[in-house]
């Protein structure tokens, strides 16, 4: 999991933001379009194009039957069932390309989110740092302590809950890429906090589960650690001309790549 994140992050840190993170629109338009074109190529070479064309023709034929013989209820029902059956076949033909495209597309969208979904905290802002312990681990919240970096101060006493959560309210005094050091028993975990400065790729959250694949901005928490998650409340970066936030970027990238695919399918000679 961590190796995959390291490789893909290294690649996309190199590829994304050629003109700096300020101009988010460039990456958020170019890469979904590239993704759409790439998906077309994958579709072309991993699907049975002839079979797809045939099943689409058959569906059209059955639709025509319904239109021509609409007074014949038996014929309409038969054609409808055939359309459903052919649609199932059509979806079956799509499974292979979808399986091939899934990982690269998710990887790209995850990287776009990592780079553009959030903005650094403002100096002076106050946020909650939240640690969640594994309930199966034999560590008590009382065994957790925080080392606050320079430029950050603790704004209130710590709160430790009975269900194994620990909360700190921290204040960003100075801009910088700060790193908290959190001692859990004998282990120490780090958590980054981007404060002030230019918009940039910033750490979002650290997770122990498979979901760490979705947050490549920071290292995943080791599988044998007693900590399930480490996160700071983040501020969504307003993108103004496209939907912002994690979901906004995901929907935008998906829709734009599909539009690009449909627009260019004839150019690349692909039957969808």
């Amino acid at each position, binding site marked *: 999991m961590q190796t995959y994140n390291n490789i893909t992050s290294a690649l996309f840190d190199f590829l994304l933001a050629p003109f700096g993170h300020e101009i988010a629109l460039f990456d958020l338009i170019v890469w979904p379009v590239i993704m759409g074109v790439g998906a077309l190529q994958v579709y072309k070479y991993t699907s049975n194009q002839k079979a797809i064309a045939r099943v689409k023709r058959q569906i059209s034929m059955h639709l025509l039957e319904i239109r021509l013989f609409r007074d014949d209820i038996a014929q309409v029902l038969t054609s409808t069932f055939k359309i459903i059956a052919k649609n199932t076949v059509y979806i079956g033909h799509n499974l292979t390309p979808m399986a091939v495209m899934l990982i690269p597309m998710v990887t790209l969208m995850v990287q776009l989110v990592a780079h553009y979904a959030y903005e650094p905290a403002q100096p002076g802002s106050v946020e909650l740092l939240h640690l969640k312990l594994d309930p199966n681990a034999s560590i008590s919240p009382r065994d957790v302590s925080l080392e606050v970096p320079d430029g950050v101060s603790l704004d209130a006493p*710590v709160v430790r809950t009975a269900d194994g959560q620990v*909360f700190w309210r921290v204040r960003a005094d100075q801009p910088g890429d700060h790193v908290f050091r959190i001692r859990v028993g004998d282990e120490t975990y780090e958590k980054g906090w981007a404060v002030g400065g230019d918009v940039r790729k910033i750490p979002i959250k650290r997770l122990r589960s498979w979901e760490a694949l979705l947050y490549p901005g920071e290292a995943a928490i080791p599988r044998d650690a007693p900590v399930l998650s480490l996160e700071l409340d983040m501020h969504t970066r307003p993108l103004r001309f496209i939907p912002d936030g994690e979901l906004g970027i995901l929907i935008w990238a998906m829709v734009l790549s599909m539009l690009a695919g449909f627009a260019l399918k004839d150019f690349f000679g692909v039957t969808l």
Partner: protein
Amino acid sequence: MRTTLPPNLWKTTALVCATLFGGALSHAEPAGKPGVFIMGVDGMDPVILSRLVDEGKMPNFAKLAREGSYQELGTSNPPQSPVAWSNFVTGMNPGGHGIFDFLHRDTSNYHPISSATPAPGEEASALHLFGYVIPLGGSDPKNNRGGTPWWDVLAENEVDVEVFRIPGNFPTPESKAKVLDGMGTIDLRGGFGTYTFYTDTLVEKKHPKGDIEYVSVQDLDLDGIPETATSVLRGPPDQFHLEPGQIPSSSDYLTARLTVHIDADSDTAVVEVGDGRTLIERGKWSDWVEVSFDLLPMGMMPVTGSVRFYAQQLRPKLKLYASPVNISPASPFMPITSPDEFVEEIFSSVGFFYTQGMPEEQEALKDGVFDDGEYIEQVALIQEDTGRMIDFALDRFEPGDTTFVYLSDIDLQCHMLWRHGDPKHPGAPNHPAFDPATAPAHAHDIENFYRDVDATLGKIRKRLPADTLLIVMSDHGFQPYTRKFHLNAWLRDAGYLVINDGKKTGHILTGDVDWSKTRAYGVGFNGLYLNLAGRESEGIVSAAEAGALLAEISAKLEALKDPQGGKSVVLEMYRGSEIYSGPRTPEAPDLVVGYNEGYGCSDESTLGEITEEILEDNTSRWSGNHLMSPDVVPGILLVNRKLSSDGHDLTDVTATLLSYYGIRPLPGMTGDSIL
């Protein structure tokens, strides 16, 4: 004023414009006017202001009065904020704009209803589907205020207008001007502010205005220290399970799960509510937390609010206060600005703020959930909001613009804190609600709020261009409220209102009044209505009898003396048909009761209750008032110009705004320019 755009787009746009039009990029001043800035201070009283100015405690007001003009400003009749501000907004009297009181009545059943929206019409039908009630037909909430706001007139004439927290503008009418609603804006429950108090201790209050949620603090980790409490926070009514027109009961609201985790070692806790959470310390307020309530499953129709918490006590007993759930300015589920997007501009600069119309936690203070210190601490949060908003307004003000900002600092504080010492007449006898234990610490609270407003004025003058027309105004003044008058009880004793079965007490809302024998009734703070045949659903007074009956009631009320001290309770009675003009006059109360200073209609009678007593001491914390005769509560007017005449009223300020830009008043506007 500018629309907020990304900086790079601004630069590009500016570059293109500069290239194309050369020097024509600068903001055009309408008719070469420097612009107008209006500071509306609800409830600022001329007597208190003059005293503090004379004592040198209001240097910025003193300077403005010296350099310009300072005089009393005639208020509306009745002098209630929604009425007075509507006079100012439309330039009309209530007969024109149709707002006669905080409360009107529904003639079909005599029930009091908010004057903000029209009386409900025919109920919409509903479709029942899979356990959901889907309303069919009906209409969106509509603002009841008639007339044309001055900002619409200015905007139509190409003046850039921004208006912040104007009372009586919710539900939000469409406008070309940028307007943020103020007083009258509802919370998520649909009311004017319902708080929630979570506690494991008995609260000795019979009918609290908020929800008291009793919780038990559990020891989940079995370490001998209880630390976790769970409950719910109520949000909007569950519209898809309510029949059209059905009044929701306490179980008919959507809820969000609330969990309080109290730290074992410190006076600190984390409150989780819905998907949001915040960390609070004892004796402090939390930040705002956004919380969503789902009207439909799977988050298909979320209604988002914002709430903040006050940890009154965490140990040994839990006393956690939750503010009313405000419409979130980050994602309002219904418009609180015009245009809708204006709230985004405000939020991006100001951050979270109270959107609720009257954000002061006065119900908590009235109920004894808060003490004076806690109340004042919460008011300071509102002052911070106001300060940020005024900075935002000043940042955007450009020559030729008109901007209005509203300050609630004085009004609610005079209502709630007058009992500690009469700021109008410091040597006056103690208020019936005077508490010698708490009064010394709070004797100068109102004075301090006046001084805060003075500091705000100083900031505004410092930042405004010197030639801007600056108007400081209030909608009414203030008086002590020492004696409560139960109008409906008086009408009963005088034989005008009859209760069923010969009983002495009852309530209009619960059907206790025998309308077949009742000739007059009171609803609202100053309204008195005849039970008129053909207008009220069970009216018995004919049009021919009405005039004589009104004269009779007026004469009796004007002659009424308080047995305690012999003072007149009512200074003057006014006939609606005589004091109002305009198309909405038929909706007016038949009589408007102009109470003498110190007197006012009780809350009970205002809402339709008929009590045992007629007059009693006001021992409530709501101890200052202005719901009296307009003669005893004038407002204030300061202008940075020398005025040649006095005797102006609120509609004259409206006329001034139009005439300043050379715009003729609309038909029905009654004022004259003060300049």
